[in-house]
């Protein structure tokens, strides 16, 4: 027994010394993203940067695989107990960065905190509570049957409840989520993830070090230290890679794709993304948009493939619907319908042969080439006699205008936080309702209660095949009605130095699983 204990203590000592880590994870990685995480509190903001941080310093219960399936992380297995309940069994022996043991209590703490977070509470609205069964088992309970339970569980990155409980020296609650002003959680972090944050200068650099007691010893990851530098300027970010200053950059601007492809020392990875770029046609502002024929005419007048090829340099997938391939609602039959003659005919039928004048607004620094896309669309609409008065704005000024529905056609890009089609409809095509928050970004004021009811029905349908059929039907109806004008799904691109095998750890959600990254 004594011997065994000694061996155990010995192995513990070995595991916690940096030497043992160095044997496995010796590589350094310099990363340049367009922004660094705004805070270390992963519940303060729901954004790409925060999700990337979450996957570096925390682990979710389960996570998305490359083909949009699930793989277990901190939860080893899960089973449905009844319509409203899913039972999760947790991995044993997982440690937080602080050294605390990970148990069900941490999941409960995290869940309660998510319910309070301004940014996350909307996603967790269908959930009522976490029931702790024992140290390593808990039930996740929804108020109604919820088909997206597992999708949402990918957002549960358990926090170290002991670390985030209690008060700081100046008497502030350690668990508080503060949108502005600094809090304990926004400067300190303890998760179960592969990397601890060793140094952080906001806007300048973040340094990560491999967590010595990381539970996933099967992970092939061999990066011991990561330095993340935000480089906002596209050209500078690309130069930093080409000059060998950094090993991995994201995003890669479309204009530089060829340059990186030609470079012998770099490797480019692109993927069709899931962010849809579309125009809303405001029926409240423009009488003509109430006529489905006019909306269809516009749908026929826009050449999605042309925009994707010429303006996006092939860096986009032309779209005729909101759901990208891989989503349940993706309807294979829907194809872009570019046909100017048909468009003119429809305009004539609707009695608008001579056209009319509308206003259009688009951001100019939010999505890839957003202002150029709007210019192209305006030119295409001119061919069916719709004169467009276009205004492009920086995003900080665009969103207030968007909230005021300040133009007849407005451009928006949308990524479904739940990686599910219903999220698109709820925000972009539901009948706008200020009280329930439905159709919050529906700047077209399109309203079809039938479609909304169908989506609501799909949202409580746990038979996924049935649900997919319902959502695809929704896509078809929206297409037939030309409820909005889809353009494309923006592609994703990353680039790295040769020998940094980024391809296996990348995915369409744009959360690189850097913990598993192998550097040769």
């Amino acid at each position, binding site marked *: 027994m004594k011997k065994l204990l000694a061996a155990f203590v010995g192995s513990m000592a070995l595991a916690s010394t940096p030497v043992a880590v160095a044997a496995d994870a010796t590589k350094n990685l310099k990363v340049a993203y367009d922004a660094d995480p705004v805070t270390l509190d992963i519940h303060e903001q729901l954004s790409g940067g925060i999700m990337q941080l979450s996957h570096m310093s925390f682990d979710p219960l389960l996570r998305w695989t490359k083909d949009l399936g699930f793989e277990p992380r901190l939860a080893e297995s899960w089973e449905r107990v009844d319509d409203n309940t899913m039972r999760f069994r947790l991995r044993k022996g997982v440690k937080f960065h602080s050294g605390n043991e990970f148990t069900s209590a941490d999941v409960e703490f995290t869940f309660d905190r998510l319910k309070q977070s301004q940014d996350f509470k*909307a996603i967790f609205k269908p959930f009522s509570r976490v029931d702790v069964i024992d140290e390593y088992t808990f039930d996740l309970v929804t108020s109604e049957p919820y088909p997206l339970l597992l999708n949402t569980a990918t957002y549960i990155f358990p926090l170290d409840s002991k670390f985030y409980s209690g008060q700081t020296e100046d008497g502030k609650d350690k668990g508080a989520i503060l949108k*502005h002003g600094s809090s304990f959680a926004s400067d300190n972090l303890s998760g179960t993830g592969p990397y601890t944050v060793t140094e952080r200068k906001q*806007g*300048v650099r973040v340094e990560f070090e491999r967590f010595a007691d990381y539970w996933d010893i099967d992970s092939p990851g061999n990066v011991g230290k990561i330095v993340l530098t*935000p480089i906002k300027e596209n050209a500078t970010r690309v*130069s930093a890679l080409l000059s060998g200053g950094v090993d991995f950059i994201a995003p890669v601007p479309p204009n530089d794709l060829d340059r990186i492809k030609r470079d012998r020392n770099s490797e480019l990875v692109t993927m069709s993304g899931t962010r849809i770029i579309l125009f809303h046609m405001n029926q409240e502002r423009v009488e003509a948009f109430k006529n489905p024929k006019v909306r269809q005419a516009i749908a026929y007048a826009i050449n999605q493939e042309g925009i994707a090829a010429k303006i996006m340099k092939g860096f986009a997938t032309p779209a005729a619907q909101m759901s990208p391939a891989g989503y349940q609602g993706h309807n294979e039959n829907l194809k872009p319908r570019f046909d100017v003659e048909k468009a003119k005919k429809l305009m004539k039928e609707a009695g608008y042969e001579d056209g009319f004048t509308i206003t259009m607004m688009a951001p100019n*620094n939010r999505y890839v080439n957003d202002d150029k896309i709007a210019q192209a669309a305006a030119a295409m609409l001119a061919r069916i006699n719709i004169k467009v008065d276009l205004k492009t704005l920086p995003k900080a000024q665009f969103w207030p205008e968007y909230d005021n529905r300040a133009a007849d056609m407005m451009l928006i890009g949308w990524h479904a936080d739940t990686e599910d089609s219903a999220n698109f409809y709820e925000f972009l095509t539901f009948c706008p309702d200020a009280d329930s928050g439905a159709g919050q970004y529906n700047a077209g004021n399109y309203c079809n209660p039938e479609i909304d009811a169908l989506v609501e029905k799909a949202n409580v349908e746990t038979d996924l095949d049935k649900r997919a059929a319902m959502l695809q039907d929704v896509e078809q109806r929206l297409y037939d009605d030309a409820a909005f004008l889809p353009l494309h799904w923006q592609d994703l691109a990353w680039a790295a130095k040769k020998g940094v095998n980024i391809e296996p750890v990348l995915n369409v959600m744009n959360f690189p699983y850097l913990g598993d990254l192998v550097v040769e």
Partner: protein
Amino acid sequence: MLAFLVQRVSQALLVMFVISVIAFAIQDGLGDPLQEMVGMSVSSEEREAIREELGLNDSFVVQYLRFAGSAIQGDLGNSYFYSKPALEVIAEHLPATLELVIGASLIIIVLSVPIGVYAAIRPQAWLSKFFMGVSTVGISIPVFLTAIVLIQLFSIGVTVNWFPADTGWGQWLNEFFTTEGGLPSYGRGDDLVHLFGTWESGLFTGEGLAHLVLPCVSLASIMLPLFIRLIRAEMMEVLQSDYIRYARAKGLGAGRINFLHALKNTMLPVITVGGVQLGIMVAYTILTETVFQWPGLGLMFLEAITRSDIPLIVAYLMVVGLIFVVTNTLVDLIYGLVNPTVKLTGKKA
């Protein structure tokens, strides 16, 4: 002297008051700070609650008085993005900008004085003509382009094979135009030395200095031609003046005439312009810092604008206003040192 300083301090206060009012007045045009603070799917009630908490719903006057009240006590508010007092954020970013400006100024001084003087003394020499030609080109290239070309040449490197490689001269020309690259193209590097307070310096390590090279050269490239031309023109004028002819007639050595008598008088207008230009240089750092991801005030300010981080924008403008006032005061003081006949307070000598 004291009266002069009092006058300057009151001027500074006035400048800062005006700047703060203007900055406050334009904030509505800058956009909504909330869009950087919350995710897209946050409901409008939640947004409204945060807006209320931040006091963004109050009227202009109420907001300004609240700001002015704490500004008098030295508190310019908290940056939305950094979640810290705006002045603290500025103090953290100031050293990087100062080092950049110091480096660029050194390049300008070390190069412009000898070149300007040489071009004035020997206006017909081919080297003078060469310098003048280059400076005309230099003055007309935007700093953004200079920076990108420098990065391409000295960070990434270019391989040239325009000339026939099988001939000796072709080979030589190819090699002449081919650059290795290797100089850092972004940031300040990891090897900074902590001096005091928030000052982390890159001036004392090889890596820190290497990171300074390209940004400093880019920044200097705008002002250098201007100063060469200014010094040349002033010097040529001074060389025509009576006392120089008299000195020549007296038989003084050329070195003594050129560098002691002529140069000193040449420098008076150069210092005045230099003081003003130093302020403008701070403005040019916005471009240079953006291209080189240099973590200084310029980059911070540009990002603050895209994020509508109003408290930080206001604080930055006020601090830069202060820098302008301070440099101009210093210029006036130096002016007095170089030319004792100039009296600060305007009284007769």
